[in-house]
């Protein structure tokens, strides 16, 4: 295959990574922005979303679309409920102390991982996509009678990958609308801006924290359900999303949604291209190097504001 079609395929892979990463990282960014909690268990919530999706699709027979539809609704809700419970029983008791919550969420990560290993097992299991049509892509070719549109062999993608990109974009758009236009979003932003003043205006800060932690984990689970037909469910699958989410959140600016999205597209696309042309490991090395450069030259991130 020539370079052009190869690049398009790399861009599509990158866009899928970027779409899922944008959703996962928004959850991490939201939790840090509002609660000032660095949630190490975010990748575990992601993995749990994929594993629960597998359980649900196994349990429901018939057309794979039904099982998947049930999974995309139920898995984020279940993971969100678990996160709310973790907030009420662990984080609240630590008074949201920044250092102690890091240790607590590391503990949470190991507990979730080991429980999954003990119940679900070490296998990687696939979830069938609700639809999986292959789409051949056109490419201009020079033939005997000049340029014409051709269909090079092997140049194509699946409908599901395009659906993942579209769904993630729609969900991130919905999250933005929720934050910017609804009263609940306003309460979240006010709590993020100044916890003390939010209390003075009668905002129930502890309830806001619990729901924010649930929402953040739910977003990670949602991203995992979207990606699990492409990448299989496995008890260690949360590592890469966690690393890349932190990369994205740090580059974009902690707690800034627009910065998170911009950085997700940047990191996702470069990850896709470098993985296709060179190696996935080099992609992670470069992403981590970018974090180091951002931390040295622009510690507040692309969109973040410096602490006063």
């Amino acid at each position: 295959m020539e370079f052009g079609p190869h690049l398009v395929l790399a861009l599509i892979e990158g866009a899928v990574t970027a779409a899922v990463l944008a959703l996962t990282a928004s959850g991490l960014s939201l939790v840090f922005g509002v609660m000032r909690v660095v949630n190490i268990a975010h990748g575990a919530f992601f993995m749990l979303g994929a594993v629960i999706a597998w359980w649900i699709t196994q349990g429901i027979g018939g057309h794979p679309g039904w099982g998947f539809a049930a999974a995309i609704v139920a898995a984020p809700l279940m993971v969100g409920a678990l996160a709310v419970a973790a907030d009420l029983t662990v984080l609240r008791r630590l008074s949201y102390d920044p250092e102690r919550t890091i240790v607590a969420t590391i503990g949470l990560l190991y507990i979730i991982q080991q429980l999954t290993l003990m119940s679900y097992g070490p296998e990687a299991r696939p979830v069938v996509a609700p639809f999986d049509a292959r789409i051949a892509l056109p490419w201009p070719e020079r033939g005997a009678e000049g340029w014409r549109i051709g269909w090079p062999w092997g140049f194509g993608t699946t409908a599901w990958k395009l659906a993942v990109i579209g769904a993630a974009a729609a969900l991130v758009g919905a999250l933005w609308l929720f934050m910017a236009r609804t009263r609940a979003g306003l309460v979240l932003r006010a709590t993020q801006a100044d916890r003390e003043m939010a209390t003075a205006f009668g905002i129930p800060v502890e309830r806001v924290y619990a729901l924010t932690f649930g929402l953040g984990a739910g977003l990670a689970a949602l991203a995992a359900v979207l990606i699990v037909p492409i990448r299989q469910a496995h008890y260690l699958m949360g590592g890469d999303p966690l690393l890349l989410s932190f990369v994205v959140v740090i580059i974009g600016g902690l707690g800034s949604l627009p910065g998170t999205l911009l950085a997700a597209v940047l990191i996702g696309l470069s990850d896709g291209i470098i993985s296709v042309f060179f190696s996935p490991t080099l992609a992670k090395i470069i992403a981590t190097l970018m974090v180091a450069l951002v931390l040295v030259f622009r510690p507040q991130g692309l969109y973040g504001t410096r602490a006063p």
Partner: protein
Amino acid sequence: MSLLSVRGLTRDFDGLRAVDGVDLDIGEGEVRALIGPNGAGKTTLVGMIAGRIAPSAGRMAFGGRDITHMPTHRRMRLGMAYTFQITSVFAGLSVVENVTLAARRRARGAAVGSAVAAALDRVGLGDRGAEMAGDLAYGHQRLLEIAMGIAQRPRLLILDEPTQGLAEGEIAGFGRLVRDLAGETTILLIEHNMDVVMALAGRITVMDAGRVLAEGTPGEIHANRAVQAAYLGGGGDAAAG
């Protein structure tokens, strides 16, 4: 019956008695000014009324209910609104969003929008709703704060040094605003500017060294020699200046 009733309120800070057995009654619909030299205990007294500082002794009742040990947010729910001595608005949120936060417990659904618009019109910020609160000039931030107080539709609105840092023209506008509000809510005004106090207050309470020195109409206070001595350091008849 008085809306706010304070009996024997006392507060010690490490042996220093900032407020010493203060009695205070504010009637429904009154505009009451609280004045006194720096360090007289005004801010400590108001901090105790708003629930930000715990009293060492004494009792308080608001609308007939004992609020001595009630936390701040429950007092706010009973109908107290307090604007801070230091400007406190959410700088990163728009003007409308700031007031919406204040209004959201008093109104539901579409009523919030109209309550917000009404409060902003009252203070003259009606056409600046989309601006970031942090970008407003200082005087306008103080007005926004008052709009946030009004939007809570309080029974008692406590204004802590509202004219501090305002220009002459802005002070005149503030006076009109308070007169306009006086019909609907009870106002407790902590204020240094004697012109403002004399023009707006129905009654004035004077504090000195943690105690209530005098209480009366602006005319009575103006004529009170003890007040002149304490407040102006014996500076004669310049009390109105």
